């Protein structure tokens, strides 16, 4: 295919998408990213339940987390419709090298674990969720124009709910940056860390060219620029230098031990009895 060549088409159903192998392969790759990103960040969010800084934050964060898990569910549903297997299997049984989430999103909340001495870091959580929700906004806005209509519809639906999530983390970010010296330093340290690790979240992986070619989403560079622009509206002094991929690319199936830990925890009950009806 040639660069700049535009293929205008409208794919209205999974059946139609399946007719073209190249198209459906790129499409599924994109949806796996959307699904796995939401799934992992909401799992890390769920680990905070009962531990958030104050009671109203516990209500807010768990509500955001539950709703984000609902978004992951809708994306997995699209994959089920495209013949990738059942939702529960997609969420619970895929090995880590099949996962397409950005590596930064699987990162542990801090030292310790949920049941025993959870020394979680709120600065990491604020920075991660703010950067991610900003990214989710620009990526989904791009996806509303996708050639695959069932995906474009879901993106539009998610975007009606997601502004509440983004607004929430924006407030935390602004307030902590303008708070005490310690608060600002903690946020800035986590921002510098994020700058070394967030790179792959902004990428599309091995099918990037096809995704753009088939009109599934705008190009990677443009998306990245939009994200940076949005982020800089809230944070005046962004870390200098370009974004890194310290641990590789989750879009290519590369992951850290933190993902194995997350998958083992989140699928523990499911694995104990796969036939159970809830």
């Amino acid at each position: 295919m040639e660069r700049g060549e535009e293929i205008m088409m409208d794919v209205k159903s999974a059946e139609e998408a399946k007719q073209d192998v190249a198209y459906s392969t790129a499409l599924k790759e994109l949806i796996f990213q959307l699904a796995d990103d939401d799934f992992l960040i909401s799992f890390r969010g769920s680990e905070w339940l009962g531990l958030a800084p104050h009671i109203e934050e516990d209500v807010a964060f768990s509500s955001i987390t539950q709703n984000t898990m609902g978004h992951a569910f809708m994306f997995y549903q699209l994959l089920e419709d495209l013949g990738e297997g059942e939702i529960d299997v997609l969420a619970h049984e895929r090995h880590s090298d099949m996962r397409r989430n950005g590596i930064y999103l699987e990162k542990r909340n801090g030292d310790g674990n949920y049941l025993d001495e959870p020394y979680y870091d709120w600065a990491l959580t604020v920075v991660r969720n703010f950067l991610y929700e900003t990214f989710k906004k620009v990526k989904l806005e791009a996806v509303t124009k996708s050639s695959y209509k069932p995906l474009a519809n879901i993106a539009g639906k998610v975007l009606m709910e997601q502004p509440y999530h983004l607004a929430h983390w924006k407030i935390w970010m602004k307030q902590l940056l303008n708070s005490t010296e310690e608060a600002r330093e903690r946020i800035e340290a986590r921002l510098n860390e994020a700058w070394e690790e967030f790179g792959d979240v902004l990428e599309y992986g091995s099918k990037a060219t096809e995704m753009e070619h088939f009109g599934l989403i705008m190009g990677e560079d443009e998306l990245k620029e939009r994200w940076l622009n949005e982020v800089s509206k809230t944070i005046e002094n962004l870390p200098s230098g370009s974004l890194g991929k310290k641990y590789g690319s989750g879009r290519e199936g590369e992951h850290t031990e933190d993902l194995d830990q997350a998958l083992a925890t989140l699928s523990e009950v499911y694995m104990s009895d796969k036939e159970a009806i809830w």
Partner: protein
Amino acid sequence: MMPISQRQVEIRAVLKTVDDPELPNVSVADLGMVHEVFVNEGAVSITMIPTFAGCPALDFIKKNVKTAVEEMAWVESCEVHFSFEEKWSTDAITGEGKRQLKKHGIAPPPENYRPGEEWTVDCPYCGSDYTSMENVFGPTACRSILYCTSCRNPFEAMKPVVDYVIN
């Protein structure tokens, strides 16, 4: 559009009796969740519009709608599915839905809401506008927690959700 048959009218009436499991006495019809009703002899097919994506009540709603419709004498089977082609917004809640919400201490969503803007509602108990937002997130995805400084009651409000315009 095809004329609405007597049978469709009957089904719509039944849907006014199926309540949201988390909002007692507020029917799924009054919440604006019913999109289309198809009738083919005894086979009924209902397309519904989900409220919030992460709402765990959707499965119960689906089941309750199916059960209620299948209890009708002439109905042999009823299929219910959720569609994302139409987008639910809080503007779809009917006047009756709003009245029932208030009865349960839940203020209806503000009108003419624009995404991202701050919003306020009157107290569902005393009607005062001297209220403040405690938490935009509440016990369910669709609700927020507020406080009325006038009658000193905490109350909830349906969180406004409207179509998203991309700049």
